[in-house]
């Protein structure tokens, strides 16, 4: 019987699509981070472009809106010399009833080489990856609650940049873990990369106890959760994904789990503070912390470009 291999890898074990950080080896994750390090300095050159994707077309397919992620993918592809086509699918074919695979078939006929896909349905990028031609690559830019692998990788890159390595680190992920594809992608990446301890911190309704099965420590108290942490990663409270009475109010959440300057002192003195954006100031994190000396939120955005360049150039160099 043929074993079901990871759809992100070809038969030589090389990365051809990036769909999730789950199931990727430490070697592959490290190769992406090392490659990204090469791309960070491209923006310091006189010519802020490298020709790796010259003559290739990158289609940004955003079935769900996201200005920041789409823009950083666009900048990344442009710096690799690719042609970038942005499709605001939310307002076009899909709303006219065209199926996802019909959309992809039509776009493939326009000679796409890489699809960057964001979709509100978990698994949509997998479906697309299964139906594209062998030379076409899919990069998941966030699918439902499932995964946001480039965010997980850029967070890992940021942590490695500031902390050197993962071996002795305690990373606390605070907030709405239940709805967060960012949290899931981070957990898979950080545990594979060898973080000593990954904690998920939040109220029981947003941090289910069964998450311990992912190899993390579950904490329902902020002080316990961030005490001694090297990295405090706050997540956006996702009001648009909330259904039912998971929280009394965002103010209630802020009272117990909002990261303030005083509470940040529970973490290590040299702890870095991260946030995937966009930030709800005064809810999951105070302005004084976002703008404070321990915040690396804007570094995350800058490194995000280099990590996306790395991912696109690595997948484009392999064939199915």
């Amino acid at each position, binding site marked *: 019987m043929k074993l079901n291999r990871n759809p992100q890898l070809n038969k030589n074990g090389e990365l051809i699509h990036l769909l999730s950080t789950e199931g990727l080896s430490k070697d592959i994750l490290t190769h992406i981070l090392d490659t990204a*390090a*090469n791309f960070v*300095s491209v923006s310091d050159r*006189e010519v802020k472009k*490298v020709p790796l994707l010259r003559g290739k077309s990158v289609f940004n397919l955003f079935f769900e809106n996201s200005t920041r992620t789409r823009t950083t993918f666009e900048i990344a592809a442009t710096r690799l010399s690719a042609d970038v086509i942005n499709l605001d699918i939310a307002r076009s074919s899909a709303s006219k009833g065209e199926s996802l695979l019909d959309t992809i078939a039509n776009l493939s006929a326009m000679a796409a080489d890489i699809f960057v896909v964001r979709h509100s349905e978990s698994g949509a990028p997998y479906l697309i990856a299964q139906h594209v031609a062998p030379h076409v690559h899919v990069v998941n830019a966030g699918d439902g609650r499932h995964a946001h692998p480039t965010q997980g990788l850029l967070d890992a890159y940021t942590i490695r940049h500031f902390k050197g390595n993962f071996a002795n680190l305690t990373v606390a992920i605070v907030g709405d873990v239940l709805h967060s594809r960012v949290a899931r992608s981070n957990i898979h990446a950080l545990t594979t990369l060898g973080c000593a301890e990954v904690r998920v911190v939040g109220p029981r309704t947003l941090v289910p106890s069964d998450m311990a099965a992912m190899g993390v420590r579950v904490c329902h108290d902020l002080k316990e959760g961030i005490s001694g942490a090297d990295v405090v990663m706050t997540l956006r409270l996702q009001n648009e994904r909330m259904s039912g009475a998971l929280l009394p109010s965002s103010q209630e959440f802020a009272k117990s789990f909002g990261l303030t300057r005083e509470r940040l002192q529970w973490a290590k003195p040299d702890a870095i503070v991260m946030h995937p954006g966009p930030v709800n100031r005064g809810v999951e994190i105070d302005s004084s912390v976002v703008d404070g000396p321990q915040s690396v939120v804007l570094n995350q955005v800058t490194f995000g470009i280099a990590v996306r360049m790395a991912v696109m150039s690595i997948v484009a160099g*392999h064939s199915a």
Partner: protein
Amino acid sequence: MSTSPAGMSIHLEAEVLYQSLLRHVRGWLVQTGQPVELVGIASGGVWLAQRLRVDLGLAAEPGVISSVMHRDDFASRGLASSVQTRLGFDVNGAHVLLLDDVLYTGRTIRAVLNELFDHGRPAQVSLMVLVDRGGRQLPIEAAWSAARITLPAHQTLQLARDEQGHFSFAVDTAEPA
């Protein structure tokens, strides 16, 4: 050093060739009479540049340059891991001496020149290598090489450096496909 037909072992004294390179670069720097930036091509060329800096008593860290971003075999071989390009000087108007262990097809040099020009417009670029193994596929030549040999295409030649910093050459013969 010797030229050999396919299948025979090649004996190249990397240390002897390095001393020859050192003498030549020392004389050349005097003759040139202006500041020259040493730039090693990753990875063998970087070792050469670092050792030349020490032996010549130069103050500036030599530059490091990688061909990875401009390789022409990216579509078939993917992106190789490599050290980063770090030049540490203003390329505009600079006199650059590129150093590499082995000159073969010329494709690495073509990629490195593109990489260099992404950082500015140098006044002059020269190339010196330990070994020119022939087999050029592009109109690129070194200004000077410590040795010239002929190697069949299925053999690879690479500089190695031991813990004491001594150089040697490794010759590998690829299995027939």
